[in-house]
């Protein structure tokens, strides 16, 4: 769970140790609250009333937790402030904490009755938290809000469902994309307005950069950004990380080995330095030491802040043959209340619906709106960088919605790390990681009663 959950808004904003400290604190809290009875689950049977746009009950205060600690935080804060200004009866209080911190704290907070009413979750965490009864089904919200699958990308919409019930209302999609440094391309005699988009031209460009004394694409051995790069490549080479039902690990098969070998060969061929440190790939692009960086859409905020940097974005180059790119998605969730309060539930619905409709403002913070209607609006098209990332929407790939799938990524990241740091052959690293992950998935199946 640690990896995909900890999507940073800024590459340097990830401080997992904080997580850890907070998690230890949460642990103490748990022990203190002893048996911790599970909260009541009002379930999907609640009525789909009232209308979603307005709330006219007694005034309520909603707690809203999320992990927007980076450049995206102010955008969400602004939306919340605007909502509070427009509403008389509902006031939303937003609390921001590190993502990893948030994910370990939330269950404890919900159990003790001190959790938020509304939260944000990445789509690959939805099923785990649904299975653990941290969040509650939202089918009634989706119905009341007249949300339906046609307004959302398939993968995003279906990932929000667990055991036939809906647990997340998609807010955005944040894909991996292709950042390039125009100045560096020019220095190497390449066209800064036409970055390479297929394998042959990509490798030619890397060769040209190498002749100019530049390591073109720094291969990160770390979860950020190496793991997302490798996942995208595996899909491009026609493979997959897991079987569709999430029961089998498939990253020990040929497409994955091919993908990882391509990354490692880039180091052998001198297109990338070895021993790339955490965040060094992103910093190298800023410093003009690298030409290319595959990074998340959230990274554009950081680049915008670098003065005089000439950079551009494009969809990921197609190295493997099948167009594919990694993506995550933020979803609204409602936590399972200990004692359901209909007024709060209704107010939360109004809030979720309202923000969901303002998602162009949210996209300015470095996101692609989840709603097709918003994504295809003229307003969003004006955000050219975001719109470029959004071109990938038809072939974005997400992890399967299986509880506990995050546990397996720990092993995946380790294989990446070992291979890219040249301590193991790609095939060996992937195979032993797959064996370990398969054991965890099996144990999780027993645990979550799949």
């Amino acid at each position, binding site marked *: *769970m*640690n990896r995909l959950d900890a999507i940073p808004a800024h590459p340097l904003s990830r*401080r*997992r*140790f*904080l997580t*850890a400290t907070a*998690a*230890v604190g*949460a*642990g*103490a809290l*748990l*022990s*203190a609250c*002893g048996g*911790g*009875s*599970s909260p009541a689950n009002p379930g999907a049977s609640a009525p789909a009333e009232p209308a979603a746009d307005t709330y006219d009950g007694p005034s309520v205060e909603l707690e809203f937790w999320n992990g927007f600690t980076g450049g995206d935080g102010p955008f969400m804060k602004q939306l919340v402030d605007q909502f509070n200004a427009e509403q008389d009866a509902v006031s939303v209080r937003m609390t921001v904490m590190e993502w*990893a911190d948030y*994910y*370990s704290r939330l*269950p*404890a907070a919900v*159990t003790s009755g001190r959790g938020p009413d509304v939260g944000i979750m990445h789509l690959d965490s939805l099923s785990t938290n649904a299975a*653990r*009864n*941290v969040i509650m089904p939202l089918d009634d919200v989706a119905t009341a809000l007249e949300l339906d699958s046609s307004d959302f990308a398939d993968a995003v919409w279906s990932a929000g469902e667990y055991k036939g019930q809906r647990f997340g209302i998609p807010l955005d999609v944040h894909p991996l994309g292709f950042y390039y440094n125009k100045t560096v391309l020019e220095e190497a005699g390449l066209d800064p307005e036409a970055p390479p988009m297929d394998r042959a031209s990509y490798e030619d460009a890397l060769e040209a950069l190498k002749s100019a004394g530049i390591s073109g694409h*720094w291969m990160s*051995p*770390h*979860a950020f950004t190496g793991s997302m790069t490798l996942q995208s490549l595996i899909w491009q080479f026609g493979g997959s990380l897991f079987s569709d039902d999430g029961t089998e690990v498939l990253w020990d098969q040929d497409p994955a080995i091919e993908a990882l070998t391509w990354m490692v060969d880039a180091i052998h061929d001198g297109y990338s*330095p*070895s*021993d*790339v*440190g*955490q965040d*060094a790939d992103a*910093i*190298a692009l800023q*410093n003009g*030491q690298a030409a290319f960086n595959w990074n998340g859409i959230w990274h554009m905020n950081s680049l915008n802040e670098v003065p005089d940097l000439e950079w551009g974005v494009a969809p990921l180059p197609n190295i493997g043959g099948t167009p594919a790119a990694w993506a995550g998605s933020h979803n609204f969730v409602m936590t399972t209340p200990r004692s359901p309060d209909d007024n709060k539930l209704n107010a939360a619905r109004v809030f979720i619906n309202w923000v969901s409709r303002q998602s162009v403002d949210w996209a300015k913070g470095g996101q692609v709106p989840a709603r097709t209607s918003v994504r295809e609006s003229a307003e969003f098209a004006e955000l050219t960088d975001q719109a470029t990332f959004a071109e990938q929407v038809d072939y974005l790939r997400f992890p399967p919605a299986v509880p*506990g799938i*995050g*546990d397996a990524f*720990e092993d995946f990241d*380790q294989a990446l*790390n*070992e291979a890219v*740091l040249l*301590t*193991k052959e790609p095939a060996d690293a992937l195979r032993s990681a797959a064996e*370990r992950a398969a*054991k*965890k998935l099996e*144990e999780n199946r027993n*645990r979550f009663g799949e």
Partner: protein
Amino acid sequence: MATTTMSPGRSARTTDGGSPRPIRRHAAWTPYAFMAPFLAIFITFVAVPAVFGVWMSLHDWDYMFEVKPFVGLQNYLNLFDSASAAYQSFWNGMRATAIFTVASVPLLMAVPLAMAILLNRRFPGRTFFRAVFFMPYVLGVAVVGLLFRFVLDPNIGIVNAAISALGLEGALNALGISTPIPWITAQPWAWISLVLMTVWWTLGFNTIIYLAGLQDIPRELYDAAKVDGATGWQQFRHVTLPGLRNVLLFVVIITTLASANMFGQSVMVTSGGPGDSTRTALMVILGEGLESFRMGSAAAMSYLLAVFLSIVSILNVLMVRGRRRR
């Protein structure tokens, strides 16, 4: 000597013999009243969780689930069964913790001792230097970790930049060290970096303890040793070290436990890498309990680690005590 200097109060009372009844200065419950605030916190946050943890470790425990099946000793047995998912990560973590402890404790014992002896001499600016060497200790592990992650970055870090600016690459290559040095991305460099960084960061604490110990050794002992013609080394060996014996015992136990609890440095600087070679036992336990929410298994791991640490602490005590008997 000890009998004459110690407990004059008691001997005075018994020899004067005026009243057989000791003067009562406080109520019977006074000591407990003084201890109460600490005791309340200790019971709430240490004793109860410790006992509760044993209970937890006997179950497949996820606090969000209504049903927490009793599994007996299975969580412990899994840690000794190479077919289980927990086995490999746990013992790999224990190995990483052991490597770090063995590598860092001798340095954290010796370097601060040398530092304390130097700082115990009289020279201008002594107080300033005492503060300087203690200063890194006040920094949080977050600050230190983030700092060193960039300082030691193999490609964009200042250390490798300095090495190449100073033209030391040739000298290093001649020693069989390839440059740029992968400080945090390859072994054994990752361990070397983590140990040295920890020594830099925490040596101030042990230095202060040693300094206090040194100031407790009576000057007369050194004077007497000098009269007997002892050299500087002999003074150190036969006066300073024996005088610091109790301090040494304290420092070795505290330092061993601190090193065995190493966590933040690995998380911040190497993220447990390269591979999982610096993923310490504490990182494994945290991941198992609060990221994967297998809390029963995590509790079992914690108890096994605690057993190991108790054994090591007992050995430390026996070693220092054993020397005293001789």
